[in-house]
């Protein structure tokens, strides 16, 4: 296993290196550079622009710039943002990433939580009216024009009902004198979600040893409720609960939008995967064993059909940059997607490259995660 991970990491480095090169060349091919924007101000003399170019590392041969860049990236230095000069790119990403990560993590988990059981259900009920209705609804949300959905949600929930603010990730009046940075709150939220997932998994595995299904399920449910209660209590007592709640409250609409858009993908994949599995002989065997329908569906069919869905889900997590552009713009959620969009529009190469490279690394690592996850979930696979 470790050997395999090592080998995969080596592969990943090669792919990443190629990716890096392509990204670099791509941005090199973009005409002009950041300093072109000063051409709009005639009182800035050309020498000043050249000085800036020099400072930003835009002079010198392409090859030198490339070597410099590669060396920097491999030493963990993504360079200095032009727009936020002289902030480091990594610093900007560090500031924006937790927002995006928490938003999309929650939304993707929710989408998975909705799509997985629905897919399971409609595959089992295939050909019935509910199958068609849910499928068509799922496809509709899946293909809906994202800005449109965002605007509808904003209009309904923010404008008509007035339940939520029309954008942003926090209420300035709440955050005038906060004891913590919002980044910290985002990180803590992410940690909470991660912790709940990890402990939930732990509970699942620990209770596996409980012999009979009924007490096992009871134990699982109550322990998970306890866990959630503890998490809620922890936040309540932490003293920064109001701040966290403000963020969560702002998250509602974007999370809803992303969930609606992406649950269909999981659902349809799950449905197809289920349909494939329920043709397998072991499903007939399970039925022949006299197992109740629900057990056959959940334990035998859905568990095996889960595997491709997991892959899709995990890899999908990597594309928060491109997926986030529309959502983040619509809901004024200044995260990675918007950062990238702005960076590209303003020709802030280091920042745009940083975002892309970050996505690249994330996707590559998630590929690895999927492989490792598979080794856990699918006993047929061992490395």
């Amino acid at each position, binding site marked *: 296993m470790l050997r395999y991970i090592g080998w995969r990491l080596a592969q990943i480095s090669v792919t990443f290196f190629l990716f890096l090169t392509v990204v670099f060349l791509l941005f090199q091919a973009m005409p002009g550079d950041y300093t072109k924007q000063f051409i709009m101000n005639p009182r800035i003399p050309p020498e000043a622009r050249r000085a800036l170019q020099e400072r930003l590392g835009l002079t010198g041969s392409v090859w030198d710039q490339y070597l410099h860049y590669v060396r920097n990236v491999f030493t963990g230095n993504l360079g200095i943002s032009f727009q936020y000069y002289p902030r480091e790119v990594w610093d900007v990403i560090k500031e924006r990433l937790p927002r995006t990560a928490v938003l999309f993590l929650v939304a993707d988990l929710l989408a998975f939580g909705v799509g997985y059981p629905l897919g399971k259900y409609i595959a089992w009920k295939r050909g019935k009216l509910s199958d068609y209705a849910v499928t068509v609804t799922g496809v509709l949300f899946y293909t809906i024009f994202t800005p449109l959905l965002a605007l509808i949600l904003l209009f309904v929930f923010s404008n008509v009902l007035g339940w939520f603010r029309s954008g942003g990730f926090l209420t300035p009046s709440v955050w005038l004198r906060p004891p913590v940075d919002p980044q910290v709150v985002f990180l803590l939220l992410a940690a909470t979600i991660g912790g709940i997932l990890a402990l939930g998994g732990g509970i699942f595995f620990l209770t596996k040893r409980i012999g009979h299904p009924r007490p096992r399920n009871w134990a699982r449910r109550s322990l998970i409720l306890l866990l959630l209660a503890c998490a809620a209590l922890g936040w309540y007592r932490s003293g920064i609960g109001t701040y966290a709640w403000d963020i969560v409250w702002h998250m509602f609409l974007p999370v809803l939008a992303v969930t609606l858009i992406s649950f269909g993908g999981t659902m349809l994949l799950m449905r197809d995967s289920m349909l494939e599995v329920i043709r397998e*002989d072991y499903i*007939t065997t399970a039925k022949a*064993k006299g197992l109740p329908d629900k057990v056959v569906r959940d334990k035998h069919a859905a568990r095996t059909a889960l595997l491709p869905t997991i892959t899709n889900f995990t890899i999908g997590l990597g594309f928060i940059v491109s997926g986030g552009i529309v959502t983040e713009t619509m809901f004024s959620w200044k995260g990675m997607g918007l950062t990238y969009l702005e960076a590209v529009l303003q020709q802030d190469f280091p920042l745009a490259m940083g975002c892309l490279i970050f996505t690249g690394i994330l996707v590559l690592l998630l590929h690895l995660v999927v492989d490792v996850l598979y080794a856990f979930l*699918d006993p047929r696979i061992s490395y």
Partner: protein
Amino acid sequence: MPLLDVRNLTMHYVTKMGDVHAVDDVSFMIEAGEAIGLVGESGCGKTSIALTLLRLLPDNARFLGGQVLFEGKDLTHIPEEEMRKIRWRGISMIFQAAMNSLNPVYRVGDQIIEAIQNHLPISYREAKRRVSELFELVGLPPEVIDRYPHEYSGGMKQRAVIAMALACDPKLVIADEPTTALDVIVQDHILRRIDEVRKKLNMAMMYISHDIAVIAEVSQRLGVMYAGCLVEFGDTVTIFKRPAHPYTVALMSAFPSIKGEKRKLQGLPGEPPDLLQPPLGCRFHPRCAYATAICAQRAPRYEEIEPGHLVACWNPRSGRA
């Protein structure tokens, strides 16, 4: 009272092109502890009968008549919940493709334990002990209980599937082509093992196979199916010695053997009928060398030509007293 009494069972599959006459007016009986064989070519309805007995037919199957009396209870009419209890506890099955009848993501032992716990109120530990007994019975080392199916060889999987079928002490085990995909030496091992277990546990056994040589070796009584119909049923030795239906005769003469004289094989002319539009009268008549005018008009009655030897043919070859 026989353990299982199938009376005039008729079952069709509904498709867009029309009804597939998969099982047509089939009747036979199985006594407790007895091994019977069901032989026939692919698509003749053998497996459909097995699935009908367990009520595991796909959605488009239509049960059109007849009774399946298991210990006097008509399985075609009891509620699903009751049927669920009969599955595996009353009738269990060894599926055709053992490779695929184990769920790849669960340990083999757990899949058997699941079946046991589903029917018997015993603890996990006890159930596991039972599994190791079963493994010993079918000739599997106990250390493979906690392995996954993909770690088993083909023969081991087949044995595990057999162990699973025996897990709840069923009264009847249906073995659907239990050894088809296996090499002869493994096949020989497994058939011998099943037979031993059957005798030891006094279970009834229904073998389904296309290979009459295998059926000849393991079953006491034997039914021959052709195109959804049971054309001949009787004691194995009797049928081999005095086959009455022309199809049975043809089947036997089409089969090469390594024993005895090398003789010329007699292939059957033509192809098995399309069950969407089975021929009128006797379904075998288009390929039958002995067909007469009546064969094309009316289906022959299924009747006893000597004690315990039933045939559905207007012109049986032998045996009619």
